[in-house]
């Protein structure tokens, strides 16, 4: 299978992630969808790294994974605080910055 297959898979994963981010009501679901988007990008990076026969893309992917982990930690902490404050994790509850 050539590059195209990976790219199509990554695009599909990314689109699923976007769909999830926009439609999920549960904050944890939104976070999971963000993960899906990030991993689609990582897949792209690795695929191109293979395609160009160089290490750059893989290195980037490793960085990206590490960053994503950090981001999830922050995200889950936010969800926890949201739950403590509101007793629920529905994302539309977190809209106070509007005012």
């Amino acid at each position: 299978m050539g590059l195209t297959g990976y790219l199509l898979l990554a695009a599909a994963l990314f689109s699923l992630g976007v769909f999830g981010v926009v439609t999920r009501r549960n904050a944890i679901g939104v976070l999971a969808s963000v993960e899906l988007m990030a991993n689609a990008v990582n897949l792209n990076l690795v695929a191109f790294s293979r395609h160009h026969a160089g290490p750059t893309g893989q290195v980037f992917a490793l960085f990206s994974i590490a960053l994503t982990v950090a981001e999830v930690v922050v995200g889950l902490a936010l969800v926890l605080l949201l739950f403590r404050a509101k007793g629920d994790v529905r994302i539309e509850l977190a809209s106070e910055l509007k005012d």
Partner: protein
Amino acid sequence: MSPLYTALLCTFLPLAAALVLVLVSPLRRAGLAAGLFSVATALIAFGGAVTLLLERWSGAATPVRETVRWLPHAGLGGGAHARAVIELGVQIDGISATMLVVVTAVAACVQIFSLGYMAGEPKPDFGRYFTWQSLFLFSMNSLVVAPNLLQLFLGWELVGLVSYLLIGYWWSKPSAARAAMKAFWMTKLADMGLILALLVLFVDTGSFDWTVTTSAAGAVTLLLFFAVMGKSAQFPLHVWLPDAMEGPTPVSALLHAATMVAAGVFLVVRAFPLFEQAPTTGLVMAYVGAFTALFAAVIAVVQTDIKKVLAYSTCSQLGYMVAALGAGSQVGGFFHLTTHACFKALLFLAAGSIIHGVHSNELSHMGGLWSRMRVTSVAFLVGALALAGVPGLAGFFSKDLILEHVLERGLWAPLGALLVAAFLTAFYMGRVTLVALFGRPSAHAEHAHEGGVSLLAPLVVLAVPAAGVGWLGAKLSGLYAAPVHFHLSPVGMVATGLALAGLGLAYWMFGAPQGGGRLRAAFAPIGRLARSGAVNARFAWGYGVLGGVSSIFAWFDRYVIDGLMNGLGYATLALGARLRGLQTGRAQDYVYVLVAAMLGVGAYGAFWSR
């Protein structure tokens, strides 16, 4: 030490001091120790700057320009940009060496003065104050030694930030917080001009140097001048400067009189090769500068707050500098910057000493200080006379040079405005001096007394250049241009006559019935002349008209110019109120828009742009 390292020391030592004060909080919270630490670094920086200037003074040193690659520019299109490299570095020549000495000297004096003036502050706040003072010195020096406009822009923004922090030093006072905000936003608005100028220049030439030849000189210089109008408080962007007096008085002396507001003028002096390519911009500058000089001088006549008088006077003198540069006189503008820094810093510090003694800014609360605060009074008098343009003192030389150049260019309207401004300058300085120092002592002033040695030493030190720096003009101008030979020109004599007339009028109107003594006797002939005969009535009428016009201008400034600026703010707020319906506060809605936009851009790229 080579000039390069000396310059780096001057620049980075204050930064190091600021970082130490930020990071080592026990030192910062110790109060006086933090202040002494900051003063020590400022004095070392001053020593370095003097070394640099002396090297140039002896004529041995050639200009130094050392840069390092900061950002390689990866070919934005072809042509000039392809190989462009963005550099940071140091340029030491006559202009930057002179400016470094001015900046570090005034900063060192102001910091020493602050040791006494701010002594009553809580210790942590005292440390915070000196942290920012050090940060200011770094910012200003990095601006001064900049080898290109980009680095100058970085320093420019940094001094803007420090200015905001220092105006709002008493942040719990609403008026100070508002003034800090106002200064920040007004100058930010003007800074848009600078960044746009940089963009235009870079797109046109692929460089941020001021030595390049550009086909877009008109646009670049007009945009630069817009930035100068903000920073150097030119009409109509001057409204932030009088409000900036909410900061501590030493801050006003350093930032809002001697150095930071002069950064705009310094920018023009630096980028003079660009401005020479655009004669129209010069014309605009001459008119705007001359108008500002007159306008601000008229307002200064009716102010009752001693700092406000000096603030409007600063506006007015900056107008002089801008007009000189507009008339094509680099030397005139820069030399007036130098002399003005000396005597205006002196005036502000003396005013600070007076305020420290009287505990009030109001002129009506002063009076009779000549006998109670002798050192301060003498210093203030020297500064006032230098500003008024009394022959032999600093202001006389630079003002004369400017007027001569404006006359040479045949700019009659600006010349007239500047001459009237010279008369008014002498008049309002005479008024302030006579009322504050020789007037009938008010209840506040009864118990006025001198502060400690840290308040007086800077006054004595600054009084020397305020009186004498004019005599160095020929040599100083020779450091970066053809040396100017000073001589008393006809227009200079007219200006001096007008200045003396202004002082005489002030004496006639505010001349002290008590106090004064010998000084009063010296001025008595002028007073008698003014008092004699039927001219009295006409003078009184004239002053009525002058006061009326002045009040109208002040009203215009307060409500129309300020109102215009506030209106701009309200319009933005109203627009925001309309648009806030789009803001639901739900992250998912934003993501939705984001994705839609991304798809739109992608589709455009894929289908239509081919």
